[in-house]
């Protein structure tokens, strides 16, 4: 009971802060717009029509949603480091709620915010020429949430170990950019150099991007954009399973590590 209350309170705070921060909401929508319409439209001409009659902007669209979710969920760690810097973490740590519920609540809170940021981008679908069914949207909500919670707990794990804001931000950028570039956001995962291929398969974000793309572009198995692991084309459920396994390990480590700090 006490734990549930703690989780709910921490979740509530993250959502409330997001709701108050209209600038963050706006930038969560504008950032993808820049990528899709400036970057995407610019490259579209030289890339031409891709496999399945899809243009480059349409290809990139699910990836940009995943990227927004990734960047949003990394904020969970950043916000813990900020709270430490600004002192609010102390109020949380002396509160009569368990450390476990604090770590879980913050993971869920930042995952909720990241999911909202990702789902908001769905309003751009008509401008890109992607048609979505209600079923697609309903499938995307838990899927983006899973991606956000997995990545968010990794952020919290790091934040419980790395105490200075500067170090944390440096490490976050060193992790975030390779994870985004090597996840299939900007280019298909076929015909890559070997070293890159290995990194893509190790990168847990790849499975999130692949599954979101499978939902939005409706490309089932055997599509040119699917992720292949040991010669096997990953189905959406297999992608989700890999992501969920990664998320489970991360959240357990995050809870353990967060509980140990003084």
């Amino acid at each position: 009971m006490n734990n549930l209350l703690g989780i709910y309170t921490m979740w509530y705070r993250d959502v409330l802060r997001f709701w108050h921060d209209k600038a963050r909401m706006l930038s969560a929508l504008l950032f993808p717009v820049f990528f899709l319409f400036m970057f995407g439209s610019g490259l579209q001409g030289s890339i031409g029509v891709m496999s399945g009659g899809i243009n480059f902007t349409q290809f990139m669209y699910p990836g940009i949603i995943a990227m927004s979710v990734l960047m949003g969920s990394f904020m969970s760690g950043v916000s813990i480091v900020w709270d430490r810097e600004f002192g609010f973490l102390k109020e949380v740590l002396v509160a009569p709620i368990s450390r476990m519920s604090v770590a879980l609540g913050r993971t869920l809170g930042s995952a909720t915010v990241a999911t909202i940021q990702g789902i908001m981008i769905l309003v751009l679908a008509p401008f890109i020429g992607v048609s979505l069914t209600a079923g697609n949207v309903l499938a995307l909500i838990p899927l983006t949430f899973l991606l956000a919670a997995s990545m968010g707990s990794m952020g919290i794990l790091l934040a419980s170990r790395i105490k200075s804001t500067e170090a944390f931000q440096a490490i976050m950028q060193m992790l975030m950019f390779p994870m985004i570039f090597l996840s299939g956001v900007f280019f298909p995962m076929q015909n890559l150099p070997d070293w890159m291929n290995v990194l893509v398969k190790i990168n847990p974000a790849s499975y999130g991007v692949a599954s979101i793309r499978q939902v939005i572009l409706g490309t089932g198995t055997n599509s040119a954009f699917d992720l292949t692991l040991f010669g096997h084309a990953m189905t959406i459920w297999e992608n989700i399973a890999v992501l969920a396994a990664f998320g489970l390990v991360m959240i357990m480590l995050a809870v353990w590590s967060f509980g140990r700090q003084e």
Partner: protein
Amino acid sequence: MSDPIIHVDNLVKKFGQLAAVDHISFDVAPGEIFGFLGPNGAGKTTTINILCTLARPTSGKASINGYDVVRQQNQVRHSIGLVFQDSSLDDRLTGLHNLKFHAMVYNVPAAVRAKRIEQVLNMVDLWDKRNNFVRTYSGGMKRRLELARGLLHYPKVLFLDEPTLGLDPQTRNHIWEYVLQLQKQEGTTVFLTTHYMDEAEKASRIAIIDHGKLVAMDTPAKLKSMVGKDIVTLRTADNRKAAEEIKTRYNAETRIDGDHLIFNVDNGEEFLPEFIKEFGIHIASISLRRPTLEDVFLKLTGREIREQEVGDSLSAQIRQSGRMRMH
């Protein structure tokens, strides 16, 4: 003493070889204002962190409201309220939301929540500002909001860690009005650290800690009488001759401070009129003062408590401006 609300028994906290807290023991009775003084690095903050369950003791025992600070952390946390030296507010939320959040975490029943929040906000005169974001508050307003938050769940023990550091005198007075009012009405125990000696005077008892050990613990009056005699400061036409005369006539050692002579006497109020009548050398000025807690502190720790303060508030300001840049 009735059952102590804070009980500390042989508490030790070591960081590597260094004992930050070195076998200290004390009890605090319910409703007391307990002053906890010491130079920086003496072990004040470490002791408070242990009592608030933020740090684990190396050995020894401590309990608050009958709950052990290691084994019954949640009950201890329910029993205490804290006002930290550094802000611990969420400045991206409104004042009202900060309090709502606190009320939820501390399980203040939903039925009384709104009323309780209104009551504490009125007490610290922030009701009108409740919907403003905390980042727009002044330093004094933030501290008042923290105080309101610390009181929201009716804690048995209120920890005030330098509650008024860097605040203007008017705000300091206000904050003390609230604290004393609360202590009277609710019987809240107050555990106070401060660099301001006039604030320490408000304590019913004072403990002085230095190098991790308790060096004294008593009422302010008794501590001051420990330093002993009243202090006479005078300036004369010929200080050297005056010093000799004081030595021969009253058997008192004088010391020179600038162009003043200082010496100690018993019962200064009766001594002074006699002295002025009898003294052969022309007196330009003379004053008498009783020993202050400052003198007690100086005698026991060899350091002035104020020396520390300038450095403290300066580094606090630097941290503050560092934070401003972050936004």
